[in-house]
């Protein structure tokens, strides 16, 4: 066991690293999205600031800080200011439970590569995500305009509806792993079938669940009216997809010991990147749904599909044991 001082110091270091990583990732996801959507639409995307426009996020950040902070009259001031904060806080908090690799030991201190390993990690992430709805709803209401009220209500109703199928699609994975801990879920996906197909959940009876998760994740994050939590949520969703369906940090290991220590984190990052790319690709390709079609899709198609997947998975696991 670690003593309390080392524990606190290690936790602070890990938190700072995680927040820096997340914010950088958010900034460069914005850059990636502009670049990829630009190329899809036969444009260049950002090119002016730095090579390939790589410094564009810095310039954007500077612009945001220097902008005039305008508050319209007749807004309900406390909530008008607090709503974006609520959205950002809950978007960032959930990253603390995401493991990005196995444990490492530096100078005799052995620590897992995540801020905290709670044995109900997935439930807590779901709880935090469900609290994020308030940011959207309160922002819509506190502006004191019927258009933003309707927009906020639509967006939060959409988030609440898709959360149900999102949560249900995860239950199949939980039954397979028998645990809420993200680390255990990833560990259950190690190894291969017949030597070459990895034992990830997406190849292991959870194809339908992955499809439902993908669809719900698109709806859950895509049209949230704030940019920053939108991208932070995107990264959380990509990390969750990687951990639950794509086998987390499992991948081929080779080379010298140092390379073997870095490779799991690299595989994790690569999978998250592929998921984010898919996300942007779909956004650049498909047109928007009409709002009633969106809700009908959630309740009449995804929800029954998720329930059916849950029933079949449960039946198979029960028969096998």
């Amino acid at each position, binding site marked *: 066991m670690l003593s309390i001082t080392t524990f606190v110091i290690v936790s602070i270091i890990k938190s700072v690293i995680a927040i820096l990583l997340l914010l950088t990732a958010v900034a460069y996801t914005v850059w990636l999205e502009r670049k990829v959507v630009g190329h899809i639409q036969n444009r260049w995307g950002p090119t002016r600031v730095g090579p390939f426009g790589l410094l564009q996020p810095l310039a954007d950040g500077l612009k945001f800080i220097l902008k005039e902070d305008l508050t319209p009259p007749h807004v309900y001031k406390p*909530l008008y200011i607090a709503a974006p904060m609520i959205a950002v806080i809950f978007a960032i908090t959930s990253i603390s439970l995401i493991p990005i690799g196995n444990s490492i030991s530096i100078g005799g201190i052995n620590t897992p590569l995540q801020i905290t390993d709670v044995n109900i990690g997935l439930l807590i992430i*779901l*709880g935090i995500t469900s*609290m994020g709805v308030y940011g959207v709803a309160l922002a819509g209401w506190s502006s004191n305009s019927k258009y933003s009220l309707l927009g906020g209500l639509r967006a*939060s109703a959409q988030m*609440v509806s898709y959360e149900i199928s999102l949560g249900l699609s995860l239950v199949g994975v939980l039954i397979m792993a028998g645990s809420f801990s993200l680390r255990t879920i990833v560990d259950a996906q190690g190894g291969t079938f017949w030597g070459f197909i990895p034992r990830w959940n997406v190849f292991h009876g959870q194809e339908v669940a992955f499809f439902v998760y993908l669809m719900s994740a698109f709806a859950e994050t895509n049209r949230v009216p704030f940019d920053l939590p939108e991208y932070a949520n995107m990264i959380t969703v990509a990390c969750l997809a990687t951990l639950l369906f794509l086998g987390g940090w499992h991948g081929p290991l080779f080379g010298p010991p140092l390379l073997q220590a870095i490779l799991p984190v690299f595989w994790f990052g690569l999978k998250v990147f592929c998921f984010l790319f898919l996300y942007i690709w779909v956004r650049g390709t498909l047109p928007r749904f009409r709002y009633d079609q969106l809700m009908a899709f959630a309740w009449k198609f995804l929800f029954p599909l998720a329930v059916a997947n849950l029933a079949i998975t449960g039946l198979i696991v029960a028969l096998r044991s």
Partner: protein
Amino acid sequence: MLHLALFTIFGAVAVAGAVNLLVQRHPINSALSLIAVMASLAVEYLLLGAEFVAAVQVIVYAGAIMVLFVFVIMLLNAGEEELTRGSRVAILFGVPGVLIGAVLIAWTLRYWRSCNRSTSRSS
């Protein structure tokens, strides 16, 4: 020690939120302080070692039921309430009720403490 401090702080937050819920005149502020009460109760469960109950408390109460409350308040566009001077029923039944409650709590605490003392003596 840390546990006790956190437990006391979040207990105080829960009580303060509950009082604020009654004092606020705007329904949306009341709903938000109810969310604060739920969240600090979840932390109390977490500190007591009931992690699952804590997570479910956040997901079900703070995440689902209170969202519906907030929706309804927004859709009905409920405005600020007028403060009344208090009803006679509240004074007739409320004040004796609070007194009886306080006496019961004090009596239970005393009884519990004497039980503890006797067990510690016998052991």
